[in-house]
Structures are given as C-alpha cells and as structure tokens.
C-alpha cells in the first residue's frame, strides 16, 4: 500500500485472503471481479463498507471481499442490513442475495425493503436455479424447467424480480449481466450514487445446474440483436445497427418498430413518475422481445434511515429528561 495521504485502493485491495470456492466457470467470479473493480474506481474504503448476504452460492460473496462482511441466514440479509443501516446510516451497506434467497424465502423482506426505501444496495444474483442445494427450480425458473424436484417440468409461473421491485415501490431498479463487465460496473456505480434502495438484478450463469440459461441473448453472436440497452433520454433501440426499436401502445403494450416507424421508438426516461413503462419492459416476453438491461427506474425519495435518524436526533436534541426524570415520572409518592 502506498503511503500517500489518501491512498486510493486498487481492485486487489478489495480481495480477501480467502480462496474463492465457487465452481470453476461460475458466473459469480465475473461479478466479484466487476464489483471489486467498481469499488476501487469509486474510491471506497474497506472499513466503511459492509457486505451482508443470505445463504446460497452467491451469498458466499462477503468472504471474498476484504471489507466488513456478514453471511447471515437464508433470505434475511435485507432485514439484518436494515438494522445495520438504521444503527449507523454512515456505513456503505451492500446486500448480496440469490434468486431463491431474495424471491422465495426472503420475498417478504425484499418487498418491504423496497417499500421503505432503505439505503441498501442489493445485488441479486439471478441464475434462475437453487445452486447451493444442487439444482432445484427457483421462483425465477421458467415454467416447464426440468430439475431434480420437477422431473416433468415445473408448473410454477416465475417472478420477474424487476417487476416485483417496481411493484413494491423500488426507487432504483436495474439489470445487468455477469459477463458484460463494463456495463455491470456502470450499474454498480449508479446504484452506489442512489440515495435509497438500489436493486440490481444480475443475470448469472450457473454452469453446473442451469448452464446457458441466458446464452440466448448473452452469447457474443446474439447480443446485438437480443439485448436492449436502456439509456436515459435515448430511444429504445436495438440491433447491431440500432435499426429496431420498442414502442408502446396506449395500454403500454410493447411492440417492435423498424424502418419508417423507427422514430416511434419510445424515448427512455428512467426518472418517469409512472412505473408503467418500466413495468412494461420488465414483463416483456423474453422469447419475442429483446432483453432490456440497464436502469429501469430511478426516483429520488428520502430514505428510511434518514427519516428515522432525524426523529431520534431531534428528540435527543430537545431532550430535557434525565434517566432519573424518566424513572421518577408519573404519579410518585414518598414513604417516610
């Protein structure tokens, strides 16, 4: 480490001394790498950063970061992190969770964190499978998914985590892909600068139990045609030559426009005061439409911990009651 006054940490400084134990080829490696890069770029300090996770392959994440870390219990990371943020709002708190962790067992905490707008940065590693328990379908697995617990194909309809987050009042909702490093890093940086809850759904390949779940649109050859990059105040265009676009009808039903109609492509506004366009994109059929990545919604709204802190600080500042006053309160009497 250099001895300059404020040494800016490098990506390497964020690596802990623990051996990373994910399966070789797992998408989690790429995400870890991008987060370390982004954290270094952001000039974060190790001791001010806290990473809190649930349970799952993805939730091993904190052990590999040389920051404060808490590997908690299945689904509860946002709840525990809320306690951390309320207790010390100055801390930079990140939550790492999986699709099972956040959408299934922890669904309740996930939605209430969004609703309250707690200043947590949530990285949801969505591999559309339960990795750690060896490959059962998850609440984000497509219907018909054949796994050990669904030998004839699952009959469950899946959640779209982005839609769920939007529905719960999420104020920063974004999507990224494990192998699209620079884009992912940019999402991490934008999430970082957001004041309330940030949620990034990160498509992550589990090469052991759900290999290729996203290759249909993430493969080098398919990307240009199949990925729709959301860019604030720019039309929704996709294709190698940006010659196709997405427009909405009066009911916010999406349709593809090309040629002469390209000008009808919707101009993306991530700060829109209605969640309708974001919701429309979040629920688009992946088979028919390109897959949007980027920021779906960003809204400025006071965060939860700030409001709580204000109430307490004001009460403390105006306090004229000692502990003795508190105990010797109400109707008291003396016995001689």
């Amino acid at each position: 480490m250099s001895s300059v006054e404020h040494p800016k940490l490098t990506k390497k400084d964020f690596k802990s001394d623990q051996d990373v134990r994910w399966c070789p080829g797992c998408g989690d490696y790429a995400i870890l790498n991008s987060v370390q890069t982004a954290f270094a770029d952001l000039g974060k300090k190790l001791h001010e950063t806290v990473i809190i996770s649930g349970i799952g392959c993805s939730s091993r994440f904190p052990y590999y970061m040389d920051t404060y870390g808490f590997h908690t219990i299945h689904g509860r990371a946002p709840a525990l992190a809320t306690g951390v943020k309320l207790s010390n709002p100055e801390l930079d708190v990140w939550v790492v969770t999986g699709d099972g962790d956040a959408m299934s067992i922890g669904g309740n905490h996930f939605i209430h964190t969004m609703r309250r707008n707690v200043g947590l940065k949530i990285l949801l590693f969505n591999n559309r499978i339960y990795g750690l328990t060896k490959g059962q379908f998850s609440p984000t697995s497509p219907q018909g998914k054949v796994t050990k617990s669904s030998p004839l194909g699952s009959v469950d309809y899946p959640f779209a985590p982005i839609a769920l987050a939007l529905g719960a009042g999420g104020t920063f909702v974004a999507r990224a892909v494990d192998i699209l490093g620079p884009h992912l890093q940019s999402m991490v940086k934008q999430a970082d600068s957001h004041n309330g809850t940030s949620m990034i759904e990160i498509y992550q390949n589990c090469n052991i139990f759900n290999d290729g779940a996203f290759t249909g649109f993430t493969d080098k050859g398919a990307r240009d045609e199949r990925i729709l990059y959301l860019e604030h105040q720019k039309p929704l265009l996709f294709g190698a030559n940006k010659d196709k676009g997405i427009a909405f009808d009066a009911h916010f039903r999406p349709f593809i426009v090309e040629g002469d109609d390209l000008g009808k492509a919707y101009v993306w506004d991530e700060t829109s005061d209605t969640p309708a366009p974001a919701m429309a994109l979040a629920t688009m059929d992946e088979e028919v439409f390109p897959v949007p990545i980027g920021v779906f919604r960003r809204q400025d709204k006071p965060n939860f911990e700030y409001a709580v802190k204000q109430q307490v600080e004001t009460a403390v500042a105006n306090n004229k009651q000692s502990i003795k006053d508190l105990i010797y309160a109400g109707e008291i009497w003396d016995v001689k």
Partner: protein
Amino acid sequence: MTGTDTTNGLTTSTLESGIQELDQVVIRFAGDSGDGMQLTGDQFTRTTALMGNDIATFPDFPAEIRAPAGTLPGVSAFQLRFSSFDIHTPGDAPDVLVAMNPAALKAHIGQLKKNGILLLNTASFKPLDLKKATYTVDPRTDGSLDGYRVIEIDLTARTREALTESDLDNRGKDRCKNMYALGILYWLFQREVEPTQKALALKFAKKPAIVEANLKAMAAGHAYAETVEIFQVSYTVAPAKMPAGTYRNIMGNQALCLGLVAASNQGNVPLFLGSYPITPASDVLHQLSGYKNHGVVTFQAEDEIAAVCAAIGASYTGRLGITSTSGPGVALKAEAIGLAIMAELPLIVLNIQRAGPSTGMPTKTQQADLLQAMYGRNGESPMVVIACSTAADAFEVGYEAVRIATKYMVPVMVLSDGYIANGSEPWKLPDVDALPKIEVNYAPEGKPDEKFKPYERNPETLARPWAKPGTKGLVHRIGGLEKQDITGNISYDPDNHQHMIDTRADKVARVANDLPPLVPIGEKSGDVLVLGWGSPRGAITAAVTRLQEQGHKISCAFLRHLNPLPNDLEALMRSFKKVVLPELNKGQLASMLRAKYLIDVKSYSQVNGQPFQSHAVEDYMRNVLQEVK
C-alpha cells in the same frame, strides 16, 4: 388483625354507622369490554397507590377488542387488592364484585366471597341481556344470589339523571356509568377523588365536555352512596408500612423497558428495538418507541424474523439489539437467534409469554415457553435465560439482561408473562446514581499490517471483541458457518467444531460466576423448599409465609437466572427433604432440575391460563408437608 397475606372478607357483623377499618380489600370490576372496566380499575389503583396502600392488580381481558356486547366472551375484568401491609398477589377471591351486566355476573360470581358485596347495574338485566349471558332465569330472583350483599342500582338511569344538563347524547352519557360506579366505591372505601379528577382532565384534555360528564357522574355516585345509605358503613384501609423511599405504581412491561433504558444509559450503549406487534408484548414496542429522546431507535418490522434480524444487525453495528415478542414470535425467531449465538453478538430477546400452544389464549398467562427458550433452536445453541417475577422486578431483570449480553457477548432471553406485563404494583424507585456499573468496550482501531482476530477471547468471560464496522483496521467477516476460533475463518475442522461448541457453552456457563447468592425466604434447610420462577412468586411467597407463621419448616426461593442456574442452587435444594416447584406449565423447570441434579423435584403444575391462587398453593404445600413428615 395482623397483616398476614390472606384475605378475610369484609366484616358484616355489626352494621353500625360509621367508618370501619380494614387491613385489606379485594375488588373486582367486571363488565363488557366497552364498559370501561380497565379504566375504572386503573383509576382506583392510582388513587389507592397515592394514598399509600400496598396494591396489586390483575387485569383480565378478552382477546377480542369488542366481542359481541353482553356475551360471556366479551367480559373484561380488573381485580385489585389493596392493604395496610406488604402483599404479594392481587388476591384470590374478591370481597366486592361490580357486575355491569348479567354476563359479567355469570363469569365472576363463582369467586365472590360469601357475604361479599355485589353491585349490579340493573339497567342491563332485561330479558335479552339475560339471554345473551345464557341465563334462563333472572339470577336476582332464583335465590342464587342469597348469601351476598346485593346492591342493585340502575346505573344507566342514575347517570343520565346526573347528566341532564350535559350536551352529550345518551350514548355519551351512558359511557360515564363506570364513573358513577367508581364514585360509589370511592365513598365506600373512603378514597380521595382528586387524583381521578386530575387524571381524567389530563386524559381527555381536548374534550372538556367528556371530562365534565365523567366527573359529574363520579360525584353523583359518591353522593348517592353517602346519602341513600345503601351501605351502613364505609371502610378505610390505612397506608401500608412500606420501606422508606419514593414510589410509583408500575406495570411489568413498563418496568422492563425502564430497566433496559437505564442500563443503556449506564453502559453508554445505545439501544435498538426491532419488533412486530403481538399480545401481550406490544406495550414494550409502544413504550420504547416513546424513548427516542433517550436515543432509542425502534423499528416496527414486517414480521418477527425481520425484527430479530434487524436487532442482530444493530448489535453488529455496536448498538444493543433487542427484540420483543411472545411465544409464537420466538418460534419464528429461532433460526436468527442461532445466528446471533454463532456470531457471538449481544442480543436481548424479550418473551412476554401467553397461553399456548399455537395462538392459544393470547390475553391469558402461562410460563410454558421455558423449554423453548432453553432448547428451541437447531444444533447445540445454548443461550442465557433470565426471568422476571413481578412488575417491579422487571426493571432489575431488564438491567441484568443488558449487563450479561454486553459482558459476555451473548444473546439473552428474558421471560416475562402476561400477568407480570399488565399487572401493576408500587415500585420503590431505585437510586439512579447507585445502579450497578455496566462496562461496554468496543474494539479499538486495529494496527496497520496486523490482521484483526475477531474470535480472540477475553480470558475471563470468553467474550470476543465487539468490533464495529466503520472502525479502521478491523475488517472481518462473520456468519452462521462454523468459524475457526481466534481467526474467524470458515472451518470444517472436527476438533475446532468440538472446541467451538464447548466454548459457546462455557461462555454461557460462566455467567453463573458473577451471580449473587440465592437467599431463601425462611430457613436455609427444613422440610420443604418451594422453588419458583416468574410470576408465581407472589402466590408462593404468600402461601409459604402463612405456612411459616403456622410453624411449618418450609422455605421458598426464586430463580431469576434459569440458564445458567446459580451455582449454589444444588446445595440449597439438598438441604430440604422435599423440593416443590409450582409452575404455570407442565413442569418444565422441574424436569430441567431433575435432569441436571438428579433431585426428585415435585412439580405442581397449573395450565388454565390463570395465575396461581395463593390459597391453592398453601393447601398443596400443606399436603406435601404432611407427606414429608
């Protein structure tokens, strides 16, 4: 009459005019949940406490906020006992029963003492009222009330009469009838009216018409009792000789919160409460939410799991995390408590027990969550368990929980119950400057180039350092996976796992090293030792002191610390021929003691949702004394 802790009934012999002195009285107010019985009882209690009597109360309300009016499930009651000597329970059978309707009468007449005073509101004895209470004949006419001093008053009509000039509509006027009844009792027991006048003025400060109507009704009731001579005598109870000091009437949940806040202030460790509402624990959430001026952060979570997890997050950050709930909530928190045990973080879990299993009887009392507190988690996951035994004791127990949690870096379960939570008693206020020291140390900044060791232990307590995120040089990772001692790295090493399980158990066991000696009431040896924990304390004390006065070799002792148990408990138990343990469960502590000490502890169990009656305990112990001889 000397002050033994027993209730004798109001004397009826010579009904000369004048004031008769009694040493104690038990009154029970019973009516519809909408009749204001809790408020009435509460007013009588405050006034009486201020007049210097010892007092104990037992509110007993239905689970439904407003069950159908006039029905048995809708009956709400408030029993209070006041005296001129030291008492331990709200009394067994009442001397006076106020029954606002037939349902209240039916539910409570069985316990009224022979010759007791029965005040009935005749306005609600119409055929439909009787039917709702499942009476086929009017009990006032079938002789079933013979043997009581029945006083029939049309409280509704009287109250309306008194309030003819009030602007309130009839509904509003009728709401004041409880105050009319209170006025009658205030005359009967020579209570001062000023405290209630002040309290009502404060309570309804924004509604002067309501204050005025209530006070008028009370005054009218008072005057009625005085002039109409429904009672030939009135009674008075002299102030109790209590130890000198400043007193305040307190309920268990209140005292518990005050203990936590006082300890937080003493140890300079800010509090965080994560909670989800549940009867009878919600008042802890309400109370602590009002202590923001003392730096308390409260969080009403989406469920019990979130509540405890947030509390653990707070403890991780350097606040002291507390979570308050009742048995069903503790069940939900079990996994997270295990995490706190594993992460070796302080945490306080308050279980205000209620009658289970499942939803059970939420407003009724029980102590059946002891084994849940002891063993209700997966794996070897011991935690400290302490219990409060009276409303005032809850202050010290709250304080003690903070001391233990922070000194040993362990989760602590505090057991209280609905009876303690809602019952009240005069509390001799502690000298705030003389409260025991609580010393909380956070790990200091780390040295550069030196790796922080999150599981390096204090040799005396085995506590690991409390390292707050945000502190330089202490970055480390914790979690539910087994950790290598000292370094805190994940470890699947068999020897380390054995060592860590032993260490976590040892840490809890060491809490016993700084407990005060057990002091029994009575001799340190003898025929029978009655052990108790939690709310039966009052009934046991009353029963045992009476038996001692009768010359029996019986003593009693109470356990605040249930895990670990005090080191001197075994010797005390072995000094008696027989150990008996009354508990409001199926013998949970009894079985723990039998297993641990191989002593044949006799369990005396009651699980009907009601507290022990001291006379029942006395009778039971008398039989045991007989057997021992």
